[in-house]
C-alpha cells in the first residue's frame, strides 16, 4: 500500500483537531448576560458612498408617493406638494409653500418663510428654516441647522451646531453634536420704551456700559484721588457706583502705606514709582503701569535707593524706619497710632507726629535728607 494515500487523512485530521477540542470542551453553565441596550459610539461619517448616488440616479423615474429629483431643486412660492420629496442636490423651498410629506436632500435645504412641512426634513447639508415656518416632523442634518425667528419644529437633531432664533418653538428635543446657539433678542421699540414709562433710566440700557472702564483702569494707574461718582439713576448705575466706592476705599487703604513716608523731596515721577514700589511690584510691572521706559524707571529706582527710600532689591526700607522708631519710649503711643490708620483723621495725626519721633534719631534717620 502506498503510504501517500494517508496524506489527505493526516491533513484532514490536522484541520479538524481544533474542532474536536471545541466540541469536547467543558461547557459554560454560568449565567449569560444579554446586553439590554447598545451604545452609539461610532464617529460621525459624512462622506456619502458612491453607490448611494448611483442608486438614486437609477431611481429617479420611479413613480409613486416619493417624488425624486436629480440635481438641485427650487420650489416657487405658495406651492403645494402632496408627496414626499427627495432631492439629490440642494433644495430651496419658496415662501408659504405647503409640503404634505417629508423632505430629504443630499445637499443644503432652505425652507422659505411661512412654509409648512407636514413630515420630516432630512439633509446631509445645512438646513435653514426661515421665519414663521412650521415643521411638523424632525429636522435632522449632518451639518448646521438654523431656525429663524418664530419657526416651529417638532425636534432638531444634528451632528453640528443648532442656531435658534428668537421666538422659535421646538416641541420636543434638540440634539446637537457640537453646540446650541441661541440668538439674542433684537432691541425692539418696546424694550426701549419701557424704562421711559417707568422713569427709571432716561437712557437705553446700552449706555449703562460706558462707566465700566474708568473704575477698573484708574486704580491700576495709581491715581489716588477718587473721582466723583457719576450720577446714576438705574439699578446698574447704583451697582457701579457702589463698586467704585469700594475700589476707592481699597486704594485709600493701599495708599496709606505710602503716606507713612514723607515724600516732599521726591519728584512726581519718583513719587509714582515709589508708591508702586510699596506694593512690591517688579520693575517690568512698574513700566507697564506707569507707561514709562524701563531705563527711566530704573534710573528713578536707583535714585530712590541712593536717597534711602528703597533697599538694593527695590523694597522699601520700612523695617529700618521701625527699628529707629521703636527705641523711643515717649513715642510708643504715636507708633501705635501709626499702625492703626483707620481713618483719614488718624492718618493726618500720624503724619504730624512722625517728625517728632524722627528728631530723636537725627544721626541715622534715612529720611533726614528728604526733610
Amino acid at each position, binding site marked *: 500500500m502506498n503510504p501517500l494515500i494517508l496524506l489527505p487523512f493526516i491533513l484532514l485530521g490536522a484541520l479538524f483537531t481544533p474542532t474536536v477540542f*471545541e466540541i469536547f470542551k467543558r461547557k459554560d453553565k454560568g449565567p449569560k*448576560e444579554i446586553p439590554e441596550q447598545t451604545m*452609539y459610539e*461610532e464617529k460621525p*461619517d*459624512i462622506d456619502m458612498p458612491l453607490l448611494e448616488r448611483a442608486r438614486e440616479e437609477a431611481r429617479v423615474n420611479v413613480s409613486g408617493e416619493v417624488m425624486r429629483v436629480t440635481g438641485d431643486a427650487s420650489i416657487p412660492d405658495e406651492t403645494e406638494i402632496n408627496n414626499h420629496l427627495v432631492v439629490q442636490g440642494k433644495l430651496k423651498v419658496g415662501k408659504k409653500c405647503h409640503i404634505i410629506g417629508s423632505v430629504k436632500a443630499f445637499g443644503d435645504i432652505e425652507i422659505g418663510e411661512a412654509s409648512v412641512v407636514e413630515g*420630516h426634513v432630512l439633509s446631509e447639508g445645512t438646513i435653514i428654516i426661515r421665519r414663521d415656518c412650521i415643521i411638523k416632523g424632525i429636522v435632522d442634518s449632518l451639518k448646521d441647522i438654523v431656525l429663524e425667528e418664530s419657526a416651529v419644529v417638532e425636534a432638531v437633531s444634528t*451632528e453640528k451646531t443648532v442656531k435658534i432664533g428668537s421666538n422659535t418653538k421646538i416641541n420636543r428635543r434638540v440634539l446637537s453634536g457640537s453646540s446650541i446657539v441661541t440668538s439674542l433678542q433684537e432691541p425692539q421699540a418696546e424694550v426701549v420704551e419701557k424704562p421711559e414709562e417707568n422713569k427709571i433710566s432716561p437712557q437705553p440700557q446700552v449706555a449703562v456700559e460706558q462707566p465700566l472702564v474708568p473704575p477698573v483702569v484708574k486704580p491700576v494707574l495709581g491715581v489716588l484721588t477718587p473721582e466723583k461718582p457719576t450720577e446714576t439713576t438705574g439699578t446698574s448705575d447704583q451697582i457701579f457706583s457702589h463698586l467704585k466706592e469700594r475700589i476707592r476705599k481699597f486704594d485709600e487703604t493701599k495708599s496709606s502705606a505710602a503716606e507713612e513716608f514723607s515724600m516732599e523731596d521726591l519728584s512726581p515721577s519718583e513719587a509714582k514709582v515709589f508708591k508702586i514700589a510699596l506694593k512690591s511690584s517688579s520693575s517690568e510691572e512698574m513700566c507697564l503701569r506707569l507707561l514709562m521706559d524701563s531705563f527711566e524707571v530704573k534710573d528713578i529706582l536707583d535714585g530712590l535707593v541712593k536717597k534711602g527710600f528703597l533697599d538694593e532689591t527695590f523694597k522699601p526700607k520700612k523695617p529700618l524706619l521701625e527699628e529707629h522708631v521703636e527705641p523711643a519710649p515717649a513715642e510708643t503711643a504715636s507708633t501705635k497710632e501709626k499702625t492703626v490708620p483707620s481713618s483719614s483723621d488718624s492718618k493726618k495725626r500720624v503724619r504730624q507726629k512722625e517728625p517728632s519721633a524722627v528728631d530723636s534719631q537725627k544721626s541715622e534717620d534715612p529720611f533726614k535728607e528728604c526733610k
Partner: protein
Amino acid sequence: MILTIIISVLFLFMLAYTCRHLIFTYSTLFGKSQSFVKSFKRIAGVFLPKVSILIPAHNEEFVIGNLLDRMTELTYPKNKLEVILIDDGSIDTTGQIADDYARNFSFIKAIHRPNGGGGKPAALNDGIKFTTGEIILTFDADYYPQLDIVEKLVAPFVDPEVGAVQGRVIVMNEEDSIVSKIVTLERIGGYKIDQEARDRLVLVPQYGGTVGGFRREALEKVGGWDRNMLTEDTDLTIRLVLKGYQIRYVNDAESYEESVTTWRAYWNQRYRWTKGHMQCATKHLKNVLKAPFLSGYEKVELTLLLCIYFMPIFVLVAWGVEVASYITPEETFLSINIRGYYFFISSIFTYSTVGNLFPFFEVGLGAYLDNRKRLLWLLPVFTFSFLIMALCCTKALIDLSLTRNCNYKWNHTHHKGNSNGNGHNGKNGQNGSNGFYKNRNGRLIQ
C-alpha cells in the same frame, strides 16, 4: 468538450459568489456606514410614531409568556404602542396566556384564529387588519428582544424612502449542541457581515420575517404577505424593492432566538428556506432583471440572493463531473485508481475552496468581530453542514420541480423553553424574567 463548458460555467458562477463574499467581508471590515445611518441612530427615541407589533403564534405556550413579558418592559411609550398576538389555531394554552395578558395590559390584544390555516403569512394578514400603527413590526413567539429595540427599528422610517427594516438575530442557546453552534456561526455571518454589508453598500438588506418591520402604507401597497410562499419574508423583500422602497438593516437592534439543536430540525428548517428561496427565484428573477429603476449593482445582488440556494447543488454537480472526468482504469492499487483518487480529492478541495473558503472567511470574520473567538474553531465543521445543505437543496429543487404549489404550514422550532430571558431563568412562567406568569393554570400571578 461539454464537460469542459459545464465546469467553466459552474466555475464562473461560484466565482461570482466568491467575489460577493469577499466584497461583503471587506466592506464590513473597512467600509463606512451610510451617512443617514448616523441620523437614524441619533434620532432613535426622538421619532416616536404609533407602532403595532404583530406576534403570530401556533402552539407556543412554552415561550410566548417570555415575549409578552418583554413587551410590557419595552421602553417605547405605551400610549404609542400596541401588541397584537395572533393565536393561529393553537391546541395548547397559547390562547389563554394571550388572553390573560390582554386583560391585564391595555396595549396588548389577542386575536384567535380557531381553525388556523395558511400558516404565518395568513395569520399576519389577519392581524394587520386590527392594527392602527403607522409602523408594523413583527416578532416570532420564541424571540426575546432588547428593551429599546422598537426605538431602534422605528428610527429609519423617518426617511420617506424606507419601506422596511430588519434587526439582528442572535442565538442565545449556542451551548446546547454542535448544531446550535453552527447555527450561531451562520447567524453571525449572515447578519453581522452579509446584512451589514448590504446596508453599507446600499444594496438590498433582506427582511428576515421577524425582528423587523414595515411602513404600513408600503405593506398595503404590496398587498401584505403572500400565503402561497414558503419564505414569505424574502418574497416581501423583493416586492417592496420592486415597488421602489428601500430596506434598511439596523445592526444595533438585537433580538435573541432559540435555535434548532438537532440535525433533523436543522434539515427541516433549511429545507423550507431552500424551497422558499427557489420559489421566490422562479417568481421574481425575471421582474428583477427587467426592473428599469434598479441599478446594475442591485440587479446583480438580487440575482445572487435569489439563486444562492442553487449554489450547493452546482458544487455537488461539479464534484460529480470531476469524478467522471478523472476516474480512469489505469494504475490501480487495491482496486483504487491512484491518479484518479488524487485528482478526485484535489477537485473536491478546489471547489470547496472556491465555494466555501470565502463564506468561511466571512463567517470567521463575523465571529471575530463579535468577539466569539472560540467559535472560530468550529469553522471546519461547516464542511459537513455544507454537504447537508447540498443534499437539502437538491431535494428541495426536485420537490419544487415536481410540485410547484407550496402550501405554508407551521413548522416552528421545537422549544425546550429553558432559554428565556437571560438564559438562566428556567422554564417560562415558572421562573421567568419577572415571575409574572404561571404557565399551566393560565392565571397571572405576580
